[in-house]
């Protein structure tokens, strides 16, 4: 019985999520766009995530460089270290880690903010004022995340590669010219395209899950806490699982 109830909960959730996405698309093409809300969210997601993304990108690049170097050094392939960092950062680590950071910061915040609005009747008040919550609250958040996450990903990738260069060339004495030449040789444009497509998909998932959890939150303060936690957990799981399938799909699309 419990399994059946759990399955029903999941199916209902997926149905609502799909309906929410359809409503967002409909709103985008038929309703007046809330520019103020979009710019506020862009500032919140893009500008206020700077420190988190910079630290994540830099230290990921640095540790990846160090670990790769320790292994490659044994087989005298030191100068290939930065190429491995570059390819990993562009296609996998940059998009995934940025998305996980944004999911933790922004996904939770969206769910908590909309959830509080739900339990304090502010969403009902909005509906009574003849304003659709999707037009006013959800569309600006989703579009702002779609714009911000790829930009933050580019930033994390650049900082990661830069930090790896500093560690590799500055601390580990890797040859700068060879390293850079291998970076340019092995980092294909499709690695960058794949990373950006993933970033777009992850951004959509984070915002959609955060807004969904907030809009369908129930049960007062406890419900808001639960919605925020679930938004982070589900968005993170979506990012990690979809990353695998996207990697397979995009590799098939662009070639390896």
């Amino acid at each position: 019985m419990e399994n059946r109830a759990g399955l029903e909960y999941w199916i209902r959730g997926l149905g609502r999520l799909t309906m929410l996405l359809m409503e967002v698309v409909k709103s985008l093409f038929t309703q007046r766009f809330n520019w103020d809300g979009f710019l506020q969210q862009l500032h919140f997601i893009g500008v206020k995530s700077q420190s988190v993304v910079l630290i994540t990108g830099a230290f990921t690049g640095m540790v990846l460089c160090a670990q790769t170097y320790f292994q490659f050094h044994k087989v005298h392939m030191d100068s290939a270290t930065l190429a491995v960092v570059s390819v990993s950062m562009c296609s996998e680590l940059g998009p995934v880690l940025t998305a996980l950071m944004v999911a933790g910061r922004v996904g939770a915040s969206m769910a908590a903010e909309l959830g509080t609005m739900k339990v304090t009747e502010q969403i009902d008040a909005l509906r009574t004022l003849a304003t659709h919550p999707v037009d006013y609250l959800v569309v600006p958040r989703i579009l702002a995340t779609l714009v911000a996450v790829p930009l933050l990903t580019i930033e994390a990738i650049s900082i990661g590669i830069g930090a790896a260069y500093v560690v590799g060339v500055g601390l580990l004495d890797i040859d700068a010219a060879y390293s850079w030449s291998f970076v340019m040789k092995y980092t294909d444009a499709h690695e960058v395209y794949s990373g950006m497509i993933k970033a777009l998909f992850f951004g959509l998932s984070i915002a959609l899950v955060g807004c969904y959890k907030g809009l369908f939150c129930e049960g007062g303060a406890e419900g808001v806490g639960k919605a925020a936690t679930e938004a982070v957990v589900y968005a993170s799981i979506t990012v990690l699982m979809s990353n695998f399938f996207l990697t397979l799909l995009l590799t098939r699309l662009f070639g390896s």
Partner: protein
Amino acid sequence: MIEAQHLSKKFGTNVVLDDVSFTVQEGQRLVIIGRSGTGKSVLLKHLVGLMEPDQGEVLVNGEKLTGLDERELLRVRSRFGMLFQSAALFDSLSVAENVGFVLQRERKLSPKEVADRVAEALEMVELGGTQDKRPSDLSGGMRKRVGLACTIIYHPEIILYDEPTTGLDLVVSDSIDRLVLRVNEKLKATTIVVTHDMRSVRTIAQRVIMLYHGKVYADTTPEELFASQDPVIYKFVNGISDAKNNGF
């Protein structure tokens, strides 16, 4: 005109509304009373289409709300104003932005005209000069009055009030009641108030509906309500509980 026809609503096994029917004429001031948990607020949410009944219909000027999708409901709701129990002001906006929300969204007026209308609405609820405050800076009574200003600024045809005086002291409650009357007289709006405050009933009501166990128990005038010797009505009006004295 608003018509509720045989409305029923259950949450799980809990029957909240059970075959509730009534009609509210244009410009009328109806007060809905009943003990906590008898479905007053749920009924109000049905009237504005925020909830869908399990059975029955709500008609606003002859148009059925049941079966309309959310966007069609928005069109119907533009005739409504609603003051929520918690005032439901938007935390992220200032008082002026809250009050001018609908006018700013419609973009039919210049920013100067919106600011003038906001100032006028705030003056009407005796809160002139509070435009730059945040909802968190306001007391309970002030929040309710700002909530009312948000509603009256766009001159709705129908105004719903969900327990407008709950949690307020008697003086503030009286000022809110008089405000409700003043708004009704000025806008000629149909007014439906949900309350269990008998002072509000005396001040506001032209007609009273009492809900009891999810049903319409009485549909009467305030004079008849206060003169009633029916035990259920008498106990409710005079605040007498059924609790037995158990010796403590």
